[in-house]
């Protein structure tokens, strides 16, 4: 009799789970990193990557590719405000109840701003409530010495503003001691700070493979790989050419370090962690 009851309970639980799952309206958001994007689908992620990630989903078209001005500080309306607006529109128009966010680089900071500062903007709480998971690809959670290197010493004239090269407010914000301040006072999820209200898990890129004889160097474009290796002068030995591993793993928890899951145990450079390189796309697909 006990066995029968246990089986009935298990069946009922399974049915409940299945029906809840079918009621959940899942959607995916692709959130870019530093830069002012107007066509992130083609210019930042590529259609190949997005289609591969969305392949086999219940509704492979239920995704949004964010296009915002992430040259601004994360709290600026053109950054987090724009992100909130586009996520809210996606949630409302598709009746999303379970949002899986994929961020790259500084996009992780902008999402963390929303998750950590819910009273900043009246749209934030609804977005947080719908978020199921944030998968942060190579997030710059503790900044990067490269941001210091590009900003340092340059004469910052208020008249000029940030019109030179890559010296934007977003780059300025990602200097190491700046991010230490924001993590300590405005952002949650780093060591010793309150946790984030929803899962924030990072994928860490740990090396740059730029040997000219190695075909793997070409995934995502060879010229990027060569250039990335020159930036290693400012980074420690575990980095993706743009961010040190310690920064990528500073917030939330480390889901995996590239070589532990990628095809052929290949590393993911900062450029490759937003491309369909070494099965990253299928790893994400299977997690959604």
């Amino acid at each position, binding site marked *: 009799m006990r066995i029968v009851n246990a089986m009935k309970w298990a069946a009922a639980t399974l049915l409940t789970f299945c029906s809840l799952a079918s009621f959940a309206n899942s959607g995916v958001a692709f959130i870019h990193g530093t830069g002012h994007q107007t066509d992130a689908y083609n210019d930042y992620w590529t259609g190949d990557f997005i289609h591969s990630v969305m392949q086999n989903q219940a509704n492979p078209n239920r995704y949004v590719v964010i296009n915002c001005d992430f040259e601004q500080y994360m709290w*600026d309306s053109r950054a987090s405000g724009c992100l909130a607006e586009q996520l809210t529109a996606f949630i409302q128009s598709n009746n999303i109840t379970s949002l899986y966010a994929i961020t790259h680089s500084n996009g992780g900071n902008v999402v963390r701003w929303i998750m950590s500062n819910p009273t900043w903007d009246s*749209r934030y709480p609804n977005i947080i409530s719908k978020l199921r998971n944030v998968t942060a690809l190579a997030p710059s959670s503790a900044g990067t010495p*490269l941001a210091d290197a590009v900003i340092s*010493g340059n*004469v910052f004239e208020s008249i000029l503003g940030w019109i030179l090269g890559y010296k934007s407010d977003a780059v300025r914000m990602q200097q190491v001691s700046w991010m230490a*301040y924001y993590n300590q006072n405005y952002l949650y999820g780093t060591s*010793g700070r309150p946790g984030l209200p929803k899962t924030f898990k990072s994928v860490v890129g740990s090396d740059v493979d730029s040997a000219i004889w190695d075909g793997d160097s070409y995934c995502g474009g060879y010229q990027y790989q060569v250039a990335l290796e020159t930036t290693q002068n400012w980074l420690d030995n575990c980095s993706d050419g743009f961010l040190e591993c310690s920064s990528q793993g500073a917030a939330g928890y480390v889901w995996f370090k590239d070589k532990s899951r990628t095809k052929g145990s290949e590393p993911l450079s900062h450029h490759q962690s937003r491309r369909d390189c070494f099965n990253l796309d299928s790893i994400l697909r299977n997690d959604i």
Partner: protein
Amino acid sequence: MKHHNMKKTAAALLVAFSVASVGAQAEVQLPAKAFQPAMSYSFALQGEQSLAVEAQKVETQSNEYWVTVGANELKAGVDIFTSQAGALIKISRSDSQTTALEPQSLKLFAAADLSNNIAGKVLGEQDLKTTGIFANATAIKMDKAIAPGQFKLQYEGALSKNAQFVIHVKEKGSIKQLHLATAKQHAIKGDNLTFSANMLSGQKTLNLKQVDAFIMSPSGKKIAVPAKRMANGTTQFDATEVTANLTQVEAPINGLYELHVNTVAEDKGLSVLRTGKIAFALAEQTATIARQLKQPISPFKPQANFELAINEPGRYEIRGTLYGHDQNGELKPIMETHAAKHFDSGKGILNMEFDRKLLIKSDLAAPFVIKNVRLYDQTRMSRL
């Protein structure tokens, strides 16, 4: 989580908002704070979760230095000092008018032999541009076979006479590091604000032959800061007075202030040059918490009320941690709650509403206590 509804959407109310004290700086755009509704939001906390809400010591290390030079200096030759082999020298254009340097016209000579160019491969602007971060820059990676010491960097091509460049010398892996530290990264104008600098070679402290420091404001204004050499080799910088005397504080919504320190030390016959910097927020005391209104926190309608004394109109936020008692009578954290509302000048009450579902779920009992109370100015993005 409690979210007061408001018919107008925030999207419709987005306006360009410029904080009054920023002068000519680029405008930061914010949601129209005056039109944002009053809100409270709670985060569940896990058992013994550490909150680290108090200021923590921050330290930076540098094994690099940078200097700004003009066109005439670069054409005449700029002295470069390295303390280990294999340094990287990056030359950035710091104005938009200057044309790119031609890699073949950039020369590097040992100070003792100005006839032999040892620059080797020079990375041009196109090479560095593909990094996605180094625009308008040219670089020389010095050969590891060349011993450290004094060099001369010279440009033999044409330059406009007003051109300016930043020369950045990076010695990756060098144990000769300038350490900067501060006990806190945020200060209210008039607060004690001190920093310390220490040049180390491994465990050994190097005596500084030269040191100077300045504060750079978010809009680029420089303010000299006095340095005081201590007997143990450390240098102290007290920025309390210079920041207290500022006629206008640039609000953190526009970025952070930075202390910049330039140093020169000698070690085994080599000059060791280092530049370091550390960021901090400086704010005006735009409001204070006058008091928490005395009332027990009810498990049926859990809330706390704070009276604020507002000096500047704006949207203010209080953050705090709600604690309850476990079966052994020990206090345990339940939730972190934020509450925000717009206020005009004068006195006002900010109501913090706790999430009752989280309270029930915690299984912790009254009396409930709120701790770690912090006040934030959302309009100027200051921690008060």
